């Protein structure tokens, strides 16, 4: 296993914020309250896994799919969600994050003129490139939390599905 020579800054300033934001976003969109401790733990473990997965240099989408699978497992173990709820939460997070990430690619390359290739080759640019995306997602998380917005409130759906009222 050969790690990138800049692995530490990458873990600290790219993988860790990305995984933490992803976890918080997934939880909120699926109607679960954010527990900071859980989000940070998933973020740290997820970031370490991301470093390992990306060191293998698989195709971009393959590494993402592996990360999705790992995050589902982490959600199940750490947040004590069932597999279906964890999968839905991670899928929701992934869809929103994917949309924002791609939009970020186009906006940043369009505004700054820096190509993705150039950004990948320079550490500072690489770390700064997703910054607008992180800021936008953080704002989105704060708004969702403030207004209790959830795309699918799995917690509520579960409560209704308990069918306690039936004999």
């Amino acid at each position, binding site marked *: 296993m050969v790690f990138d020579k800049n692995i530490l800054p990458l873990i600290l300033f790219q993988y860790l914020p990305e995984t933490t934001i992803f976890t918080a976003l997934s939880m909120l969109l699926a109607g679960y309250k954010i527990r900071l401790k859980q989000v940070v733990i998933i973020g740290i473990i997820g970031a370490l896994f991301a470093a390992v997965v990306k060191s293998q240099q698989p*195709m*971009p*989408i393959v590494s*993402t*799919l592996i990360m999705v699978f790992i995050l589902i497992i982490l959600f199940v173990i750490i947040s004590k969600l*069932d597999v*279906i*709820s964890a*999968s*839905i939460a991670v*899928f*929701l997070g*992934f*869809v*929103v994050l*994917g*949309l924002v*990430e*791609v*939009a970020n*690619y*186009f906006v940043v*390359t369009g505004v700054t003129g820096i*190509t*993705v*290739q150039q950004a*990948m080759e320079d550490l500072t640019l690489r770390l700064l490139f997703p910054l607008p995306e992180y800021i936008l997602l953080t704002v989105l998380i704060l708004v969702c939390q403030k207004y209790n917005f959830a*795309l*699918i*409130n*799995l917690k*509520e*759906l*579960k409560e*209704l*599905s*308990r*069918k*306690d*009222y*039936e*004999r």
Partner: protein
Amino acid sequence: MKDRTIFNIIIPLGLAFLLVSLLVLSSLNLHNLISSPLSLSEPVLFAMIIMLFITIPVLLILTKNIYLLSKQQKTLEIQDFYIEHLSELVRAIRVQRHDFVNHMQVVCALMKTGKFDKAIEYIADLSHDIQITGAMLSVDIPELSALLLAKTDLARKKEILFKITVESNLKGLEIKPLELIMVVANLLDNAFEAVESLPVDIRSVVLKVAETAEYYCLQIKNPGYIPEEIRMRIFEMGYSTKEGKERGTGLAAVKSVVEKNGGTITLQCSRDQGIIFTVSFPKPSNSER
């Protein structure tokens, strides 16, 4: 969540997931970061990306709407349950009204024929019945009163002596009426089912509603005996002494609801005392009120 709801949600969400993967691949391809599997010309890639940008939010909205529809369906199911109980109550009241007319006719006939003693005796019996109904209605949870009224009617039909003692109006009990109904209805139905096969003279169920300084208590007592090995497993999900696919969920669900509301449920059983289920809910402290 084992019904179709999740399946219905997963389909558009899974599709959105696949499309986002395709979107990421297309945009990376556009930036020439990868050469395969997509190697389309730029205008086609652009058009595809724009299409995906439109389709994915549409799928997300669709997922949200499916969720909302499922939620409405569940709410309707719960309302159906309420309506079923209300219908039972209305039927019970109709029966009572019909009975009342009959009683009045009997009293009238007795008085007309000069049998005043018999008439007084008859009215005394009748007022006892009315007092029981009054006790039921004194509970501060109308849904519970309605349930008790309906169950009294059911007990009468099954020739079960159903005695209700109300020593507390349960004012201050913080539990959703739906959940309280579910607990009491399950325990009463189990008790009725247990005594149904007994001789009529010992076919009785007693419900006591009381409170102590710290707890609200509901106690349901019926004759019978449960062996210890069954008692140990009686609150387990899926465990039942009766045959049938849907059995063994009632008491497990009761325990889950009671515990969810911070209460406890206990089962005492002896050959002399019979079977006693006691449900206790802690009273909220002053600061919580």
